[in-house]
């Protein structure tokens, strides 16, 4: 094992700076989750009643989409470790298409809610639901932009099996977006 290899295993995959960002983001989402849960404990009936109005099926489909997209990113990282740039770009493209599907379904959900006259000020449940899911939605868009940039560079042969920190950095961020949604979905759409 070379010295550089030992150094890589000392740190999480990708650029270390992204991990500081990931931990900070997890902290912010964590505050959101706990605020929601403790606000609910003060008004269980309102939260349970409002939750029934959400489209659980689209929430579950979006969960399956993000999980699969995350898996495609895992495949992209595996491809570049084998020095297969084009294959890496193709897996990333598949992940980006799924991210686009997530955004489409979420937009549909936002429009449906908005057309019912529901807004942030409707009640505490919707204030949390709209702010948390919109905050996550913005992270999906940012993750998509990162994956597109990584895909374009991979397509041009900008990464190799020796140098693919950029791919791992983008992948780590995307998995964080997935991980947060895995907590958000049961919390907001299902638990009662």
């Amino acid at each position, binding site marked *: 094992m070379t010295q550089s290899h030992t150094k890589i*295993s*000392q*740190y*999480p*995959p990708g650029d270390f700076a992204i*991990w500081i960002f990931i*931990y900070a983001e*997890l*902290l912010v989402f*964590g505050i959101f*989750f*706990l605020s929601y*849960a*403790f606000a*609910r*404990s*003060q008004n*269980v009936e309102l939260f*349970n009643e409002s939750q029934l109005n959400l489209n*659980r*099926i689209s929430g*579950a489909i979006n*969960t*399956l989409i993000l*999980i*699969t997209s*995350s*898996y495609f*990113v*895992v*495949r992209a990282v*595996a491809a570049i*470790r*084998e020095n297969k740039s084009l294959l890496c770009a193709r897996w990333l493209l598949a992940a980006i298409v799924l991210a686009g599907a997530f955004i489409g379904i979420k937009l549909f959900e936002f429009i449906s809610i908005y057309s019912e006259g529901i807004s942030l000020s409707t009640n505490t449940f919707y204030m949390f639901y709209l702010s948390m899911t919109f905050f996550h939605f913005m992270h999906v868009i940012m993750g998509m932009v990162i994956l597109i940039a990584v895909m374009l560079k991979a397509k041009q042969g900008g990464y190799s*099996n020796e140098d693919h920190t950029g791919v*791992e950095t983008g992948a*780590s961020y995307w*998995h*964080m977006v*997935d*991980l947060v949604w*895995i*907590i958000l*979905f*049961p*919390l907001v*759409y*299902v*638990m*009662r």
Partner: protein
Amino acid sequence: MNKTTTTKSNLRPCTWVWLTLMVLTLAVLTVGQMGLGGVTIVALLLVSTLVKTHIVADYFMGLKQGRLLWRMIIIVYLWIIVSMIGLAYWLGIS
């Protein structure tokens, strides 16, 4: 063992993780569609969330292969968040 074999053997657990995540998500959806609630159901949902996030961190994010410190930050975070959510739901029920 050459690099290709190593990558393939690393991919296999990730494929199982993906399938597990899909099955657990469908189970969560089923619980939601049946309108189930209460302490036991919330506890099961939280355990399922903990399992899902653990395996995403370990296998997808690759933290299992790195230094324990970076993995522990996420693991401790997940346990605190899930436990506190459980406490808040318990307070709501009681």
